[in-house]
């Protein structure tokens, strides 16, 4: 089995885009290929994440359409759908295919448009997002996506005493990080008072506890160790990927607020990488809502159970803190174009581990972790990436190991 490496990355700014899905995806995919130093001829397969193009834009058979648009016609194409974990699932399968020797160089990416630019306003998009909830046992109650995470977070507040102020601290932190990221949907900072005075979406969440409806695309080139040596892009090693699911619907989960799938996926990823939470230097995790970040920091073992809220409020998870979480701004500030989110986390970690993240760079970042969940957290994919020493002409043989 060979190691898989990320050798090139690209993404659009997240926000509001008027372009079509193919044109939007090209804005991420072509820069990713260029960053890898790969041409279309080098690419053996295409793995796509797109969750809701059928519902939002009436698009299906999207993977070959996008491949043709960016010069990859003819390669095997596959599309993944796993709600918000969509493109992490594509990434996992791309990595597995490379590790197994089925493909040497794979383009993986995600694209989605969710903003009102699609013609879908908040009530229509809220209904489309709710399609990830159970059709018989959840949706008829009027449960929304913010509502799903509100139920988990309210329970966590009951069990551990997590406060609205601590939740707001997550939003403040991620907005501050996002203000350092030129690709973020929200470039402005916010305050605890501003978060706590916003309109309620689904209590305990107010507007600024929630990620926005965003458009965007992200792409990465995954290559085997041998292929990485022939390409000019600086590699980052994929050290481990874990993927776990839990019972749907929420009510049937043994302990909903524990987000067991995240614990299981993290355990797999840590074991494969031979690292533990204490070894992780930088984290991109799925903060679709402030409460989701609190649950995730605990499930990943970055903090003790019950300490997610206090840790955020104390700055432990800020840039400059002991374990920086979401230096990109996270879904909360960077934005959340559903099918692009997982690969966008890989883009951010790759830049962090290369030392290319400018003013949001985490110092001495050698081990990065991405956590991407789907649906009511029943799907979670956790990836551990590791830096590879910068190659120069003398070290060329060393770097791809």
């Amino acid at each position, binding site marked *: 089995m060979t190691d898989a490496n990320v050798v090139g990355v690209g993404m659009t700014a997240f926000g509001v885009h008027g372009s079509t899905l193919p044109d939007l995806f090209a804005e991420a995919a072509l820069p990713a290929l260029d960053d890898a130093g790969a041409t279309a001829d080098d690419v053996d397969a295409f793995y796509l994440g797109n969750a809701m193009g059928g519902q939002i834009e009436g698009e299906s058979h999207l993977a070959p359409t996008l491949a043709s648009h960016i010069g990859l016609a003819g390669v095997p194409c596959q599309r993944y759908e796993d709600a918000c974990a969509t493109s992490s699932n594509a990434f996992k399968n791309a990595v597995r295919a490379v590790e197994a020797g089925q493909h040497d160089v794979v383009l993986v990416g995600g694209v989605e448009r969710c903003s009102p630019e699609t013609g879908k306003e908040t009530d229509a998009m809220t209904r489309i997002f709710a399609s990830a909830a159970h059709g018989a046992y959840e949706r008829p109650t*009027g449960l929304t996506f913010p509502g799903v995470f509100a139920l988990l977070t309210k329970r966590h507040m009951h069990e551990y005493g997590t406060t609205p102020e601590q939740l707001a601290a997550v939003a403040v932190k991620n907005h501050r990080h996002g203000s350092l990221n030129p690709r973020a949907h929200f470039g402005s900072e916010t305050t605890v008072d501003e978060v706590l005075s916003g309109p309620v979406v*689904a*209590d305990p969440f107010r507007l600024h506890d929630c990620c926005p409806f965003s458009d965007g695309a992200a792409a990465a080139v995954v290559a085997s160790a041998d292929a990485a040596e022939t390409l000019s892009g600086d590699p980052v090693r994929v050290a481990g990927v874990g993927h776990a699911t839990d019972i749907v619907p929420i*009510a049937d989960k043994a302990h909903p607020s524990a987000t067991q799938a995240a614990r299981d996926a993290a355990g797999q990823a840590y074991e494969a990488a031979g690292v533990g939470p204490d070894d992780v230097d930088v984290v991109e995790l799925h903060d679709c809502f402030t409460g989701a970040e609190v649950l995730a920091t605990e499930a990943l073992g970055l903090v003790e159970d019950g300490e997610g809220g206090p840790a955020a409020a104390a700055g432990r998870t800020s840039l400059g803190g002991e374990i920086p979480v979401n230096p990109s701004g996270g879904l909360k500030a960077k934005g959340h174009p559903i099918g692009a989110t997982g690969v966008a986390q890989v883009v951010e970690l790759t830049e962090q581990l290369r030392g290319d993240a400018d003013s949001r760079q985490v110092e001495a970042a050698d081990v990065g972790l991405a956590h991407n969940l789907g649906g009511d957290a029943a799907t979670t994919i956790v990836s551990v990436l590791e830096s590879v020493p910068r190659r120069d002409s003398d070290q060329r043989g060393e770097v791809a190991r």
Partner: protein
Amino acid sequence: MSESLDAYRSDGRLTTNGWRAALEDGVLLGQACADCEHVTAAPKAACARCGSRDLSTVQLPEEGTVYSVSRIEVAPAGFDAPYHVGLVTLGDARLTARLSDAAEIGDSVSFQNAVTTPEGPAPRFG
């Protein structure tokens, strides 16, 4: 279980449509697993905890306690906010329900009826 529940079963199994029909008749049905004893308010073709197909149809308790709750103020198309959605513990099972009023975790609630929505019937507690 009792023969009166047979009408909601298909080939001896409680289907989602049977669960819906019972709900609309004011009857809350679930399944109990003979192998792992998991009781669910969300009937399936096999037990979600252990995979067993040895499931019996059970009538769920109509008195429960609120496990978690949220007041939804931004609703999907077809729903009028605000309203309350909760997870309700009913004996050994947990159910997602519409709550008729604001509630706190731990409050006692009882089954009222089925509320009709664009997505189908939902159990209402209060």
